[in-house]
């Protein structure tokens, strides 16, 4: 562990003598899994879940095998295999990663876990860095597997340990649900020692572990019985917390409906305690299976039930299904993250608090600052070239999705991981009038781009695939994958040869080009799009940030030569900005030498040849 060991002092000033570490929610999940004796962990990176697997690199490889998988389904299948082999296993992913892994999850719910099997899924309410804000709690119900929802880093550690025990006790995969706010909030966590349960041995029961229809029909009733048993466990577990609040529990004078109680889960509890510490709260360990008995008992002590949950009304609808009247989404939004402000607004709407004072209008309109591709990003040239040839561009997930916005504005679609090539096949088959190009990053290509590439060859699609090979999974902060030649722990590994792979699946037209050579890149793309059938351009140039930060000799603008055409600003490079000088009323440009890495893309597009190396 890199964090230092510190003393923690409780609210009463009493020193807690157990070891305590400042951990993020993600690091606490890793620590909890390690303490629970996990032996195999696998993941595909995805914000906000990425650091869970990365943190395993801090633990002894002899204790736990931790590896990047090519995608979330392979990660879950790997963990399932380890569970079959009798040890505790974990797979981690972001919410949309579970869509990829869901086929395995749905079957594994019937089969049930052998060694403890925990699937950590991190939701992204507010869509900080995702394509949607789907609520994994609904997925848990669809799959019939229990979901645990910790509120903070301490609970993240404890719930992870409970999740493994629960998985083995009820022979079920368990979903541990985080959110961006849990994953990326750091607080001091009391930690414990590692205890490894003995291996349960290989599962050895093919009537359960082979999902032929006869077996599946026999297993389904067990899933339903397990749901009922788990609902009892959720009602009885000490993790389901009854908190009477700081006050006497009575509602403020004049409040409608008498004594009021809150039912909440996960991080909602923290906001409730901050906004309304006087109210009695039932904090559930998770939303599914519903802790019906605990909720009924709580409801009997109050006159009015209010449900606080982030995103979907999963609890609210389930509680109504028990025949208990309750309020929830009529008070709190179904979109985005909860916050103390939203809690106060909702409770005020319910008549339980004085309405917040009028917010003074913001004196200053905030300036837009959208994220941009880095100075020297090799994707910049690829999309500049694509725009100039006037293609329909089916995009994919990665940093390069930023090419969809100004000034590059050269990506037409982006659906989800690996969709670009399939989308391009459909566009071409529908008779799109311009050349059809799919753009896909190296990590995304390995994640889910290879099957559609084979499909394109098989179905004789007239498309060009541009593999944007920057040798890393850049978007999530620089993780290794089978194309980098290194493992999670930095050990050398075999490296995928994309050109050989493309030829092996039957593509005759494959070229590798350096995107920093703009002229050659444009010529290559023109030739590729003129080719009938599937052509592949591999635009190969390492990411400027990871694994090593690249910094070359910076460039400068000779102001006397600049005619303020601003062709260079079409790159959207954050190092290029307006200078104080004008030409015919237009701003000349200047280059920030401290951030310029000297990629020369701007010099190559300059119409007057006035961008040159900085001279002393």
């Amino acid at each position, binding site marked *: 562990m890199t964090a230092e060991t510190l003393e*923690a*002092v409780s*609210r009463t*000033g009493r020193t807690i003598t157990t070891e305590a570490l*400042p951990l993020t929610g993600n690091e606490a999940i890793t620590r909890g899994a390690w303490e629970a004796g996990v032996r195999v962990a696998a993941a595909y990176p995805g*914000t906000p879940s990425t650091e869970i697997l990365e943190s395993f690199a801090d633990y002894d490889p002899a204790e736990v095998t931790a590896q990047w998988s090519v995608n979330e389904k392979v990660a879950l299948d790997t963990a399932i295999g380890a569970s079959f082999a009798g040890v505790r296993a974990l797979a981690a992913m972001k919410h949309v990663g579970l869509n990829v892994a869901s086929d395995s999850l749905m079957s594994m719910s019937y089969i049930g876990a052998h060694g403890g099997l925990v699937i950590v899924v991190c939701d992204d309410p507010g869509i*900080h*860095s995702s394509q949607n804000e789907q609520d994994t709690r609904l997925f848990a119900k669809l799959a019939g597997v229990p979901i645990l929802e910790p509120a*903070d880093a301490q609970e993240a550690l404890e719930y992870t340990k409970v999740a493994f025990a629960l998985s083995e006790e009820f022979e079920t995969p368990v979903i541990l649900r985080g959110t*961006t*706010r849990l994953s*990326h*909030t*750091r*607080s*001091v966590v009391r930690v414990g020692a590692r205890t490894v349960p003995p291996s349960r041995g290989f599962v050895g029961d093919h009537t359960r572990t082979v999902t032929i229809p006869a077996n599946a029909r026999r297993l389904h009733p067990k899933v339903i019985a397990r749901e009922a048993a788990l609902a009892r466990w959720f009602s009885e577990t000490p993790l389901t917390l009854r908190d009477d609040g700081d006050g006497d529990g009575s509602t403020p004078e004049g409040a409608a409906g008498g004594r009021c109680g809150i039912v909440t889960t996960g*991080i909602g509890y*923290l*906001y409730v*305690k*901050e*906004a309304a510490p006087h109210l009695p709260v039932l904090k559930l360990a998770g939303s599914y299976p519903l802790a019906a008995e605990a909720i009924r008992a709580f409801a009997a002590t109050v006159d009015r039930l209010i449900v606080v949950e982030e995103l979907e009304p999963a609890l609210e609808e389930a509680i109504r299904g028990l025949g208990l009247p309750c309020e929830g989404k009529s008070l709190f939004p179904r979109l985005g993250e909860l*916050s*103390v*402000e939203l809690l106060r607004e909702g409770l005020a709407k319910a008549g339980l608090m004085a309405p917040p004072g009028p*917010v003074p209008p*913001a*004196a*200053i309109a*905030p*300036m*837009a*600052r*959208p*994220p*941009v*591709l*880095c100075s020297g990003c090799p994707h910049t040239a690829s999309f500049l070239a694509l*725009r100039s040839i006037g293609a329909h561009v089916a995009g994919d997930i990665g*940093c390069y999705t*930023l090419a969809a916005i*100004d*000034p590059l504005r050269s990506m037409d679609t982006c659906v989800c991981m690996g969709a670009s090539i399939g989308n391009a096949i459909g566009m071409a088959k529908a008779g799109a009038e311009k050349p059809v190009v799919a753009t896909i990053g190296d990590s995304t290509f390995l994640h889910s781009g290879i099957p559609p590439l084979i499909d394109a060859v098989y179905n004789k699609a007239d498309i060009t695939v541009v593999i944007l090979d920057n040798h890393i999974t850049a978007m999530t902060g620089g993780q290794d994958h089978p194309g980098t030649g290194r493992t999670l722990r930095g050990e050398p590994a075999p490296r995928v040869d994309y050109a050989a792979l493309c030829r092996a699946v039957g593509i005759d037209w494959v070229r590798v080009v350096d995107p920093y050579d703009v002229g050659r890149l444009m010529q290559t793309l023109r030739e590729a799009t003129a080719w009938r059938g599937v052509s592949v351009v591999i635009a190969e140039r390492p990411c400027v*940030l990871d694994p090593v930060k690249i910094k070359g000799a910076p460039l400068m603008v000779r102001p006397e030569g600049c*005619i303020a*055409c*601003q*062709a260079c*600003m079409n790159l959207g*490079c*954050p190092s290029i*900005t*307006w200078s104080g000088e*004008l030409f*015919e*009323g*237009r*701003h000349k440009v200047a280059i920030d030498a*401290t951030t310029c890495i000297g990629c020369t893309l701007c010099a190559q597009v300059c*119409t007057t040849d006035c961008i040159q190396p900085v001279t002393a």
Partner: protein
Amino acid sequence: MRPLPNDDFAPAPRCVETGLNILVVGVGGQGVLMISKALALLAQRRGFEVKQSEVHGMAKRGGIVFSHVRFAPKVWSPTIAKGEADVLIALEWAEGLRWLDHLRPGRGVFIADTRRIVPPFACRSRKPGAPSAYARETPAEIVGRHADGCALDATEIATALGDARTANTVLLGRLSAWLDYPVGDWHAVVEAIAPKGTAEINRRAFDAGRAWTPPRTDIGDPGTADATVASPPLAALPDLHISVAIDPAWCKGCAICVKLCPERCLAMDGPIAVVATPSACTGCRVCEWLCPDFAVTVRNEGVPA
């Protein structure tokens, strides 16, 4: 260090025992998370419960970065509600303005680097006379009016010390002058959090920020130039007439103009080039100058010489 027309910033030093909400904001790569961690560690060592919450993902891509640091005997919510931040530390000027409404009205302390990082998005229009979309408010308009605190060119202070990247530590040092914990405790957390090999430069940056004093200048004096702030918007150019035309009789369809137009307002129409979006023309004349057949005429009247 350039002088700035600041109000006096001399709130009494405070030794906080009830806890604080500190919001640290900036742009990706500036070190928002490093000083958040330093603050969290300091508070933790003083026996507070600490929560430090951030959002990454777009952090490395020049986007907005913010980190909430809350410490108190008991902390519930990981985030600071609007209007409840005791301190706002801004590593970039416009980012500070963005989060000003999170400060406690009348009581919050604002500590900002006046350095501007102008995003490409703020320089989109190439038209003559187009203003930058960067925030126009100057430190003189904000500090002492919308918020108490100080604005200093921390980046310049850090650059003078030898490493512009320690501007974040300069601001942390400035905060330490107000948050009166023993200086040895501050030094210890800076040393613990600083990246390998940078403990010494970060310590000097911290001390420089701590020792900074606002230059005495008269705010009312219009002659006080605030050189760190964006140039004022250009005067509107009412008599501006810009147009581009292509003579179809002379065009042979080489497409040089189409490929090189920075605004992409030209297009091929069969064998010849045409003006597709005349309103997008900025009058830069690249097409006119590069046309081998003299087929393009740009009319560009009313602009300054």
